[in-house]
């Protein structure tokens, strides 16, 4: 056994690699994340316009057509150009380093999958500037309203939207093939399934869902594109089509898509709580397997998105029960995290604050989720602001907050510099307060009967809408300390040692930042389960020697 050496004298790679067709997963990961946050700012700006319009009952800030285009693009950008790319960025950074692989299984395919994102992103943004404006029928794009094409042009916002979504599907399928293959085939020696970090379990579960679900959406979107530009009538009742068919295609993927988002977030919770509570993950095996129970159930709940479209009673009851069952494996995970925190030695760093805030919001969203699953309540609140509130608690309150936690936690590893704690805590506080102030008022609004997607509303809804808008503006401000932190610590933050959080995991046995091929030839042999905090068992063979070499390299780097 020879050990890796860590020559600190390796020439620093040029920053221009981030703008090139690079096949290093760590470069691609950072490309994904930075690009995702660029689109996050655009999507956020659109959200500010939405909440600006809704701060008064009348449609007075923008024209109704503009409002409809903006809310459609807000949802589309946030999902297809922010959440999915940012998670794929984390997958690229974390999967190879966590399992000890030199790169992804198919590095060129990986780079192609990434470069499709700026292509369809540009296409989507360009649709703002075509005659007639962008797509305006919501991120669901239900026909027939989505195929009305008021100007009759061949090139129109809706057509560009559908092309972009189909390309996004192709990109995500490429990514999923890569992630699944890498996890199955390229784990370090000794890393059996039940020695694999939970983030990899959840990534495997989520990417399997992508492979099963995405063909339905991509096919459905292409059929809709044909209806729009080629005169077919798959969904048009005037030609014998059925608009509800599209809803099945759309939600067969787009409900599992929520699990594609939330499963890696569960993975991040499971990685971070043990580090900052200094305890093993409570019930590791059950937590790992629960991801796949969620996959199975997640595939048979899609009809709960359109209980009101006219589905028979038996179907309503079946999909209601399936949906409610998902709360069981999800509950198992929540309790396991609480069990991990219990009697821990918790350090309240920025990542753990974001995790705790995210968990708080997630549990709240879980409860409104069960309410939405029950048909009679759903009949009343579906397509109201109650759903918007629930959804934003899941996606912003839980997923985005925990993605922030992941970024603060792994930033030192992949950038090689430490983010600033003070700015991080300000960012957390503004995000947590802003998110709750923004999204909590949406629940009473929905219960009172305010439909979603409206550009004006009856005056009795004004009070809660003003609160929501103030919360949204606070969220808008909350991104400033984050950006300041990222830019300044990247440029001149303190140099990061190889393991600043004293965490256990293969990625922490690499220098910060890791070399291009990670461990190269010298992949350590894994001999224990992850999260062995307090157990005193080494994770890999020759752990002490590896640590010593890394510490020596840290010191050498610090003295330069």
């Amino acid at each position: 056994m020879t050990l890796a050496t860590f020559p600190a004298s390796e020439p620093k790679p040029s920053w221009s690699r981030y703008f090139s067709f690079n096949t290093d997963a760590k470069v691609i990961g950072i490309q994904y994340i930075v690009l995702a946050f660029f689109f996050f700012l655009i999507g956020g700006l659109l959200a500010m316009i939405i909440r600006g319009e809704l701060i008064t009952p009348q449609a007075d800030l923008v024209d109704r057509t503009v409002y409809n285009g903006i809310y459609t693009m807000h949802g589309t950008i946030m999902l297809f150009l922010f959440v999915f790319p940012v998670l794929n960025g984390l997958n690229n950074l974390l999967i190879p380093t966590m399992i000890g692989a030199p790169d992804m299984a198919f590095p060129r395919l990986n780079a192609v999958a990434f470069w499709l994102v700026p292509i369809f992103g540009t296409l989507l943004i360009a649709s703002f500037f075509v005659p007639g404006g962008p797509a305006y029928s919501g991120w669901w794009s239900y026909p027939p309203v989505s195929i009305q094409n008021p100007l009759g042009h061949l090139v129109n916002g809706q057509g560009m939207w559908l092309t972009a979504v189909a390309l996004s599907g192709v990109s995500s399928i490429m990514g999923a093939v890569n992630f699944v293959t890498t996890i199955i085939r390229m784990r370090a020696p000794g890393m059996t399934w039940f020695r694999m970090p939970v983030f990899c379990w959840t990534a495997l579960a989520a990417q399997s869902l992508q492979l099963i679900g995405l063909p339905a959406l991509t096919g459905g979107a292409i059929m809709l594109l044909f209806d729009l530009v080629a005169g077919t009538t798959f969904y048009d009742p005037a030609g014998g089509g059925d608009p509800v068919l599209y809803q099945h295609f759309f939600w067969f993927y787009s409900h599992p898509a929520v699990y594609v988002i939330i499963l890696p977030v569960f993975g991040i919770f499971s990685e971070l709580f043990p580090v900052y509570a200094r305890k093993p993950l409570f019930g590791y095996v059950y937590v790992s397997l629960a991801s796949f129970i969620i996959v199975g159930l997640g595939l048979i709940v899609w009809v709960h998105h359109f209980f009101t479209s006219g589905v028979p009673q038996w179907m309503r009851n079946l999909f209601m029960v399936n949906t409610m069952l998902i709360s069981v494996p999800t509950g198992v995970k929540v309790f396991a995290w609480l069990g991990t925190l219990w009697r821990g030695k918790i350090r309240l760093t920025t990542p753990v604050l974001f995790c705790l805030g995210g968990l708080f919001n997630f549990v709240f969203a879980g409860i409104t989720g069960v309410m939405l699953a029950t048909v009679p309540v759903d009949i009343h609140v579906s397509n109201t602001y109650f759903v918007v509130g629930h959804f934003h608690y899941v996606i912003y309150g839980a997923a985005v907050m925990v993605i922030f936690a992941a970024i603060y936690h792994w930033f030192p590893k992949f950038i090689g510099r430490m983010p600033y704690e003070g700015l991080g805590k300000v960012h957390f506080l503004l995000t947590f307060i802003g998110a709750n102030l923004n999204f909590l008022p949406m629940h009473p609004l929905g219960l009172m009967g305010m439909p979603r997607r409206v550009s004006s509303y009856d005056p009795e809804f004004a009070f809660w809408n003003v609160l929501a808008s103030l919360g949204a503006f606070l969220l808008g401000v909350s991104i400033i300390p984050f950006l300041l932190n990222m830019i300044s610590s990247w440029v001149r933050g303190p140099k990061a040692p190889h393991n600043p959080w004293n965490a256990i995991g293969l990625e922490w046995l690499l220098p910060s930042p890791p070399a291009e091929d990670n461990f190269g030839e010298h992949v350590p042999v894994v001999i224990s389960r992850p999260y062995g905090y307090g157990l005193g068992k080494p994770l890999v063979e020759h752990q002490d020697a590896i640590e010593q070499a890394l510490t020596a390299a840290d010191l050498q780097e610090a003295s330069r």
Partner: protein
Amino acid sequence: MFGLAALVVVLIALSWWMGQQAYHWLPVQASTAAPLVDGLFSFETAIGTFVFGGVVSVMAWVLLMHRAEKYDETDAEPIEGNTKLEVIWTAIPFVLVMAIAVYAIRVNTSLGVLGPMEHIHQDNPVEGVVGYPGDRLPAEQVEVIARQWSWEFRYPDANVSSTELHLAVDQPVTFRLVSEDVLHGFFIPAFRLKQDVVPGRAINFNLTPTREGRYRLRDSQFSGTWFAANQADVVVESGDAHTAWLKQSAALPLQSGISDAVDEYAARAKKANPGWATVPPAPPPQVNVPGSNNLPHDA
């Protein structure tokens, strides 16, 4: 142990109180369906409060009591799991959600008996827009025509049409929901009922109003530019008043009904920079009674 018992008692009291509060977050109950839906929602609010309160209590406790001392870099006592606990916290949520599901299925069945959820999706998906099958329907029949962007209500027995929906209190009514263009949603919050209106289908939809008053009907499935303005008033009146209204209305000449979209479209055309492209609104329906959609409403 005493502390835990005290916490559970407090949580149960809080959950019960939140369950009672839940009724106040909803609009007035104006149909036979409303008390059933509200009861379920209240039950779910109580259970949800208990679960949320429990989780947040644990989080607050560990935040206060299980923090690392300053400069303490050591690990905590390693606890890798506890099979008994894991079985318990699988079983309890399972029992809770199944209890909710059984309750919800029973409400579903009751609502089915009341008739609001059945329609012809399974046996006869496309029914002619004309040719009204009145003989198999139990109650007053109202034909609802949704358009971009107006609601038209026709009372074929009385030969009346209106853009304001009038219903008799405590009398079952059957709507026949049709759309002439895109998906719309027939949503009256005070009745707790909602049904998508699907073009190419006629959907029968029953309900019974139980409270006199003026309510809002809102389009709940996004239908394009003036979706938000596609609302109508619903007037629930006594049986006598309803009969009188039908009789008076039948004598009125046809005139343009309410369509805010038509008015806004005309105003928009005068602007130098009107915005992005839109489908033009359908002309306002010709009805006996335009009614109003800007009077104060109960919900």
